């Protein structure tokens, strides 16, 4: 079975769309241009010698306050060649939009819905982009770094009344 080097193959096929290649602890990361991700995904899946047929994971990262703020990482795995690859795209903070890879790997459907739900990244051409984990009418995207974690102030005897005034429960 022929086995292509994924970096060389991608660079030959897409040229400038491959923005950066790095290896950390044995994981190879290829940063690609966001507009091309669906084409690059299809190429990785269908090219003989690459055949990244299992999309293990899609995840979003918020690098706030850096710019570009968001990243989406795709963890690909090739069953015939037993190797993996990470594709990554960077997205601007004010308008994070990226083409969906659901037409390429159907399993991306729910992963992308989760990223949309928790980070507010929009995927174009997604068949069913709704919230998945949070309730439908939820305000905001909880995994964003500027979304507070939320906690309850501990009430002691000396500040009982003060804390009680700010507590969000019904008072008569």
């Amino acid at each position, binding site marked *: 079975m022929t086995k292509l080097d994924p970096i060389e193959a991608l660079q030959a096929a897409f040229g400038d769309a491959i923005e950066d290649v790095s290896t950390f602890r*044995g994981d190879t990361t290829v940063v690609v241009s966001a507009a091309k991700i669906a084409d690059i995904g299809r190429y990785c899946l269908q090219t003989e010698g690459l055949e990244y047929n299992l999309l293990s*994971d899609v*995840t979003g990262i918020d690098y706030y306050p850096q710019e570009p703020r968001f990243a989406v990482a795709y963890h690909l795995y090739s*069953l015939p060649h037993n190797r993996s690859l990470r594709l990554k795209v960077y997205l601007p903070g004010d308008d994070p939009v990226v083409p969906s890879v659901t037409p390429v790997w*159907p*399993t991306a459907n729910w992963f992308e819905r989760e990223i949309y739900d928790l980070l507010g990244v929009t995927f174009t051409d997604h068949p*069913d982009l709704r919230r998945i984990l949070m309730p439908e009418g939820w305000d905001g995207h909880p*995994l964003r770094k500027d979304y507070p*974690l939320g906690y309850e102030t501990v009430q002691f005897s000396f500040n009982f009344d003060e804390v009680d005034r700010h507590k969000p429960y019904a008072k008569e």
Partner: protein
Amino acid sequence: MSVQEETVWQGDVEKLRGLVSDRALSGETMVLNMGPQHPSTHGVLRLLLELDGEDIVNCIPDIGFLHTGIEKNMEAKRYEQSITMTDRMDYLNPLGNNLAYCLAMEKLIELDVPPRAQVIRVLLAELTRINSHLVWLGTHALDIGAMSVFLYCFREREKILDIFEMVSGQRMMSTYFRPGGLWRDVPEEFEPAVRDFIDYFPAKVDDYEKLLSNNPIWLDRTQGIGFISAEDAIALGCTGPTLRGSGVNWDIRKALPYSGYEQFDFEVPLGVHGDVYDRYIIRIEEMRQSLRIVEQAIDNLPGGLFRSNNRKYVPPPRAELGHSMEAVIHHFKLWTEGFRPPKGEVYVRVESPRGELGCFLASDGSPRPWRVRFRTPSFVHLSALPHMAKGHLIADLVGIIGSVDIVLGDCDR
């Protein structure tokens, strides 16, 4: 508008458009809500079903009822503090989750694990697999109508939980693995207890098979149900027994060995038909293979350290604090600030009882992870459920849900 009017659900037909077929909107097919508190959905899973008579036309899973924001919470804690939360994700596979998270941390900081710790980790991970498969078998059989198997399975599971309690003090949420090894060494009674279990358990697996494998009712309810082809299973991201049920030989323990799995001799059972019955047979056989691994591990349990000696990441033993200033400093640093891994991103996959459990860690060089992400098998398998359920009877849906072995805590995190 009065309060009463507000609380009455008005029924938004527009929200259903696109999810169900047009036949449902004209009233030709029926839309039925199943869950989130249905006894056979193994947790709080809601399914929206479109039915033509008893046939399933469309199945739309609705998840998120158990979403607890574990990933967000982990960002606010130090690396070591989050181990307890991984137990609570997939509550039938606590040690497997610990393992995935610890391996990701160890990959990030390039920490070596002593051989004794690795073997104990494998041993306990395999006991966890048996434990998880026992709960699965019991509840799956209960769903389909075989009551007694459930009671037998929980009887055997109790023995495994006793072993977990012995090593960690906890039956279920054991939090026993630490970056660099284990929390503490296993006690003396551990080895006899494991050997007892190895002698005791094989006959019990045979008993389950006697009760189910050739039972005509069981065969009727499972064979040819919930079919998924190998191509579809890969495209939909199925892993673990669900993928192997369709005949794809991919087990992460064999393909990408971690924690020393390459030293163990075991087989990967494969299915042929990709139906509920094949997934059942695979899990039964996996219990036997896991027991083989446990046996090899206890026979070849190496001596030595149970935790790495790298003091920058692993706390010193309590006894050293009394006479070593350096130990006190390390202890103080680890407990007040935690360790600082280098900047970078890693992804680790392990074979959980349900399939591929992935852990993605992004570090910015601070003592708290910048982003933790768990790729959980239940989440992916649930997204493949509509594909398996379409065209079957509503009564078979219960068997199909059981056969992909979902845990909603794992799914929603």
